[in-house]
């Protein structure tokens, strides 16, 4: 398999141990045609244990999803087998279809085609609120 040898793609490293599956789902990686490796509980000097996701191919990844779910993760872009870019994650201002609004009184609970949009309302506390009903993201 591709572990260790990605030609063109992305390595999401330093994922908090146990979070890789959640990220895999939120990034929609089950729809990917390319090779994807999910490594759990890798031994890491810095973190003790960490998860890693490796994507060998050109799959559109919403970096905001990673920044929201696990801001300490790092992103390495690989081209022709070489590391070309390390992306620092920035707290996203807006999340589109990353979290679902849980408020049963929210318009998103009845109108299925609406995007679930959350915006960062309190950067100091990392609080996101639904643009429709202002419920806090959970």
């Amino acid at each position: 398999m591709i572990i260790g040898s990605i030609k063109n793609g992305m390595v999401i490293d330093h994922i908090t141990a146990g979070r890789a599956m959640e990220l895999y789902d939120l990034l929609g990686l089950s729809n990917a045609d390319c090779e994807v490796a999910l490594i759990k509980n890798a031994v890491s000097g810095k973190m003790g244990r960490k998860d890693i996701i490796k994507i060998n191919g050109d799959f559109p990844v919403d970096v905001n999803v990673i920044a929201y779910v696990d801001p300490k993760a790092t992103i390495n872009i690989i081209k022709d087998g070489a590391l070309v870019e390390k992306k620092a994650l920035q707290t996203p201002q807006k999340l589109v279809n990353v979290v679902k609004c849980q408020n049963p009184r929210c318009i998103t609970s009845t109108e299925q085609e609406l995007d679930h949009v959350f915006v960062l309302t309190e950067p100091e506390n990392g609080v996101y609120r639904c643009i429709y009903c202002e419920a806090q993201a959970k």
Partner: protein
Amino acid sequence: MRSLFSITDLSVEEIQGLIDTANQIIEDPDRFAHVCDRKKLATLFFEPSTRTRLSFEAAMYELGGQVIGFSSASSSSAAKGESVADTAKTISCYADIIAMRHPKEGAPLVAAMNASIPVINAGDGGHNHPTQTLADLLTLYREKGRLDNLTVGFCGDLKFGRTVHSLIAALARYEGIKVVLISPKELQLPSYIKKDVLQKYDIPYTQTTNLEGAMPQLDALYMTRVQRERFFNEEDYLRLKDSYILDPEKMKNAGEDMIVMHPLPRVNEISVAIDNDPRACYFKQVLNGKYMRMALIMMLLGVKA
């Protein structure tokens, strides 16, 4: 193009502009009788609210405009499963401005994202109802002559009462506001409003369960209903309900110029015996609501007298 979802969408200056327009309308209604000639307001009421709908309709007629719309979801295309987005796009072809009531929170925002005309939130579930707050603000301004340096008491269900939350958020932006929160322990103002509004704007507030004791210091008393269904047991409800009913006996504790407000409809929380008390202002609030809706429609349509 502007829309209005929440009272805090309007700046203090814009609110003053609306109050000024409303006062001009009250002084000389004829001058405004044709400013909306040939314009149409669509009242899209996905849940019935006769009072609010009639207020919007009367407002538009008094500006010389016309009204189309529906008064419940069952008489609208929503009954056939049409989305709010599609309804908004369709109505944009017919009308110049929308007033929308919907049981779901945020529905007017969805409408505005899809409409090509201004949308006014006429109540979205328990979330926002900004034109009620505009009515409250005009009432305070006309009765007290100012919106700053006021001590306002809020009494009743402060936990779920959206009109209370919204008026507190609006008043917090003025200088010298003090708030007295009068409610049973079960129905106190939610802590997020204390934190996000009262503490953020440094508004001094006190909490009490005693209405009579709080009354002497108030410039205005904003009453709301304590609803039976908010209590876990009948015993607590029966024990508490009379403490928050305003009657002539309790009014003896109020200053001569303390006004009584209520978003209406009332059930029994204000005794009809005080309706003739000159301090009772809740029916003036209804009238003021129409004038503020007129001013708001003019502002959003960009028309002037």
